[in-house]
């Protein structure tokens, strides 16, 4: 049996989790909610994270548009995703939820905008 102590990162409570792995199954204790149980399991089997960053935007009322991966992606793909995000350049206008990069770094997850950026001439 293998045991791992983790801090849950799902919310600011930061519950101390204990994950036991035995006979191919995992049990999570120490969590205060269902999200914690799911996180504990995922973290020992295939850890994932939501990546947030910014992308340059032309012709808008902001010069950077903040973005995030629509869902969490495998942890070992974070820097591959960042490489694509850093190269990206978009033009205003952009709305929250617009796809900025489809299927980022082969993860099957899109990178989407997290702010509205208006075109400068529309202001």
């Amino acid at each position, binding site marked *: 049996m293998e045991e791992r102590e*983790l*801090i*849950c*990162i*799902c*919310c*600011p409570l*930061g519950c101390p989790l204990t994950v036991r792995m035995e006979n191919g199954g995992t049990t999570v204790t120490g969590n205060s909610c269902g999200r914690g149980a799911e996180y504990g399991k995922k973290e020992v089997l295939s850890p994932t*994270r*939501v*990546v*947030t*960053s*910014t992308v*340059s935007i032309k012709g808008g*009322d*902001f*010069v*950077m548009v*903040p*973005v*995030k991966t629509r869902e969490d992606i495998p*942890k070992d793909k*974070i*820097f591959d995703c*960042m490489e694509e995000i*850093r190269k990206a350049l978009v033009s205003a206008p952009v709305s*929250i939820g617009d796809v900025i990069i489809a299927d980022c770094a082969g993860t099957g997850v899109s990178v989407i905008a*997290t*702010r*509205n950026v208006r075109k400068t001439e529309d202001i």
Partner: protein
Amino acid sequence: MTEHDIVIIGGGPAGLAAADAARKAGIEDIMILEREAYLGGILNQCIHNGFGLHTFKEELTGPEYAVRYIKMIEEENIPYLLNTMVLDIGRDKVLTIINRGEGLTTIKAGAVILAMGCRERPRGALNIPGFRPAGIYSAGTAQRLMNMEGYEVGKEAVILGSGDIGLIMARRMTLEGARVKAVAELMPYSGGLKRNIVQCLDDYGISLKLSHTVVDIEGKERVTGVTLAAVDEKRKPIPGTEEHYTCDTLLLSVGLIPENELSKGAGVQLDEITSGPVVNDRLETSISGIFACGNVLHVHDLVDYVSEEASLAGTSAVSYVKPRKEKTPSSQIKIKAAGGVRYTVPQYLDAENMEDQVKVRFRVSDVYRDRYISVYFDSERVSHKKRKVLAPGEMEQVVLKKESLAKYPDLKQIVVCTEVE
């Protein structure tokens, strides 16, 4: 001079939530004054996720959280002025404001809600020896430069202070290709949330050096390196423990201070510990009709709590402008922080006019394990709850109920404290 029933200073999370609550409580005439060119305040540069789990039951980034409130304000047609700076809150709640369109003008407010937020503690407050080269930023300034203005702030960084902004910036710089060599924290515990230690430092193999500080900054034009040293229990550097790090950037994440120049000018009484106004359970300051909420009142760890607190300031301002019932004679019961509790907000309670429930928020002064949080009504203990871990970085709360206070008509003082047993 124009007139408005409620004037809100600041269009960040606190100001927006206060405006929304005030409108829902039935006040038409509200004005929000914001000095930036956009609403949303600091949330605009907090592009990471983790906001809104309490308020919206989903995980949002800062800009997404802000937009939810901006939408409410726009749907409710609540007016706001951007690029507008409040210079002074004068007598009888006459505000002097300035902006490009109107120049210098005045507004007479029925009630004022202070929602100006906070500022970062600067290098000058730390007494770190060394030159004053480029490359030293407060963490929030670096965050703004990177996330909003698109600058690269540096290639190799050391971060002093383990507040949440410092931790978030350690990850942010790493993702953008910089090398973060260490995070040094003067105290023996982190000032940030545990989840941020895990997802911002541990995930990227960045070491957190507790009980360490910067003892020297090198470089004349640009930072070329810093020296860290361990500190003893009196926080004095221990000779012989110095370690040198070459770097071009030093970020400071060493605390936030409520921005109360306007409050001071108005004569509002401030709390020495929080650096924010002293308030009662309606979040009313020492000047009647001036209310405070959000980080200008005390520094919060979660925006969700800011929104909740600001809603209370909004509804309180409405009952001040439009009293529903005859106000019964009011009492001023002192809420005292003691035994490991650094401060409480509010600091006073009006038992006669209070809502059914009042949340008292506070922070503890050290990391405690297996301690109780207790509440005393004068000398009688009325609540005693065990907590596994308490840390200064995380805000705590106790709830006071009107029905339980009704049993103590002669109550003079409420004490919130921690106890070993």
